[in-house]
């Protein structure tokens, strides 16, 4: 029982970071039905920028915020230069472009910061918030989860209470009527990309700030697969679905893999892919998705 509880806490820790990247994917998917394969790399680039700023002496949370702004601006630029000219209905070129961005960003991060793992500064208080027998709930877990919820609340507010948020949701809902209402489509989608990248950078920073991990350029690849699965579980179009999907995947990763003897530990990634396969095959709109994904 204790072990189980411990695993649940671990699930929350990992799940929150997956959820943040998943939120980023959901934002972009919602508006453009595009899956950005470079999302994880954009996030790690942002996290490296945070690290660099911190090296330069900027306080940690200030660095995180500047890093988020940096990746938001970068993402807005990427959208304008590489994405906007393609027809969103033609998937192959967009998949290829985002794979290209994946390679380029990954390579640049590796050239600038090298492949050696570096330790990332602590974002949250260390130690345990709660100890019971051998079960420990770290402050890190609590804050990671809290940040995730906070980001979702902020995004929810941005999307429902601001004009640009309303425009963004209008564009996601009905492109033609948005245009006929005077909304400029390009800049609105750009806003979505920027928001997504900011969420991703926060997610990667929190991920890297995990005391048991170190930051290195290819660390997001695994996280990307988990996050994609989380996003798909949540239906790819719902922000809160991304959180629940993230927690579920965290749960699958740490609880299910632990308790089912024939799934060894290193198979957690495969377990995620199997979940993805099942979800996409049986319910293409995701477990929590509201509408059918394919419109005839």
């Amino acid at each position: 029982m204790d072990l189980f509880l411990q695993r649940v806490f671990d699930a929350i820790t990992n799940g929150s970071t997956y959820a943040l990247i998943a939120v980023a994917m959901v934002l972009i998917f919602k508006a453009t039905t595009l899956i950005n394969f470079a999302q994880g790399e954009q996030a790690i680039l942002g996290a490296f920028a945070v690290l660099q700023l911190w090296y330069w002496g900027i306080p940690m949370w200030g660095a995180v915020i500047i890093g988020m702004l940096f990746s938001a601006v970068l993402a807005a630029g990427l959208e304008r230069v590489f994405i906007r000219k393609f027809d969103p209905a033609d998937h192959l070129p967009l998949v290829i472009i985002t794979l290209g961005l994946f390679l380029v960003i990954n390579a640049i991060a590796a050239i600038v910061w090298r492949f050696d793992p570096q330790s990332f500064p602590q974002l949250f208080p260390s130690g345990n918030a709660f100890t019971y027998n051998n079960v420990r709930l770290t402050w890190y877990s609590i804050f990671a989860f809290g940040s995730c919820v906070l980001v979702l609340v902020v995004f929810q507010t941005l999307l429902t209470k601001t004009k640009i948020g309303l425009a963004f949701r209008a564009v996601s809902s009905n492109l033609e009527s948005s245009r006929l209402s005077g909304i400029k489509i390009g800049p609105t989608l750009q806003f979505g990309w920027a928001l997504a990248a900011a969420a991703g950078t926060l997610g990667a920073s929190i991920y890297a700030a995990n005391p048991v991990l170190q930051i290195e350029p290819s660390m997001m690849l695994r996280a990307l697969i988990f996050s994609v699965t989380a996003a798909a579980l949540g239906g790819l179009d719902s922000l809160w679905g991304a959180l629940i999907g993230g927690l579920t995947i965290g749960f699958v990763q740490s609880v299910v893999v632990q308790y089912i003897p024939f799934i060894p530990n290193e198979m957690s990634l495969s377990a995620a892919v199997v979940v993805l396969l099942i979800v996409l095959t049986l319910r293409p709109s995701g477990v929590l998705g509201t509408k059918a994904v394919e419109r005839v």
Partner: protein
Amino acid sequence: MLQKLYSSRFTPERNYQIAKWTFFVIALLLIAFAYVDVGTISIGSNNYNLSLIRLNKAIAYTIAILGLQVVIGYTGQIALGQSFFFGTGAYISAWLIADHSWPFLLTLLIVIPSCFLIGMILGLPALRIRGLYLALLTFGLAAVFPSIVKLDKLYGYTGGAGGKLTSNYKFIAPSWLPFDEVAQALQKIPLLGDFFGDGPLSTREESRLWKFILFSLLAGLCFWLVHNLIRSRPGRAMRAIRDNETSAAVSGVNLALTKTLSFGVASALGGVGGAIYVAEIGIASPDDFSSLVAIYLIVGLVVGGVGTLPGAVIGGLIYALVPDWASSTQSVSFVPERWLQGPTGSLILGVLLIVLTLFLPGGIVMGWRKFKNKLLRKELSTAR
């Protein structure tokens, strides 16, 4: 009457094709003999390796990319997980060679049907999952391959993280092949003779040449098969699915069957590529089949040209040479040293991918064809 018209119209085309391929084979042989050992090309102060090891790797990638041409280029299904089948073929072949002392060619008899079947089974979700979702799923497949072969349970077959060594198997050239004679004849060519080494070939060189020729023949066979396929009834069905699924079904194309079979063919080609890769490298190790490999194979597909057969060759060469050459570049003026080490190859490939998609969507092959057409049209107009 029409048929006559048709066949007479296409004779020059056919002659051109025959001439082209003859030229290609001769060029291949010349390169093989010239660079049989550690042949290098020097540009500036950097030496670039063009030994047959590189070219054999290029052949392996080419065949895997040919598989991607089938499933992405011709059937239009965005399947990113080719490294999975590349790896599966590699490991099956390695296991048979290392643990059961099978000869390489015989392992293909197991590799091809098993990859074909696995590909068909894993292609089944594609009947329901489309477009981006399929891309996601297959990318996930590529990502999990290394962790599957590292499983403790499979250690006996895969050798775990350390990989499966096959270097005990030697490719021995048949004695009837006149390698020495050809080499010596080439050495006598005035001026150019130096390129072809000195004196008879060593056993190691003969073995390398034999491997290269064997792999080239295999590649040629794969091209022939795929070429036949795409210019046939099922091939047209594949292309019809790519261009418009609904009207393909209305015309009587069995979507499910055609899609799964093309997944099967693609996977089998991936498996053959993987088997060749392992035969060349001498070891199957998990990290040679990571999802990065899957992306690089996509680079090969796109840079060569999606939906073109010669594109696979260009793509294979680019994949085999660019990262290697990038990391062996020691110095280039105006480029800081930091940018020349490590992942520069990956950077170049990524940039190529983006630039070609933006500016030359048909890849190098389509670009060349457009260029050729422009030239030909120009000649016509000046002739008039």
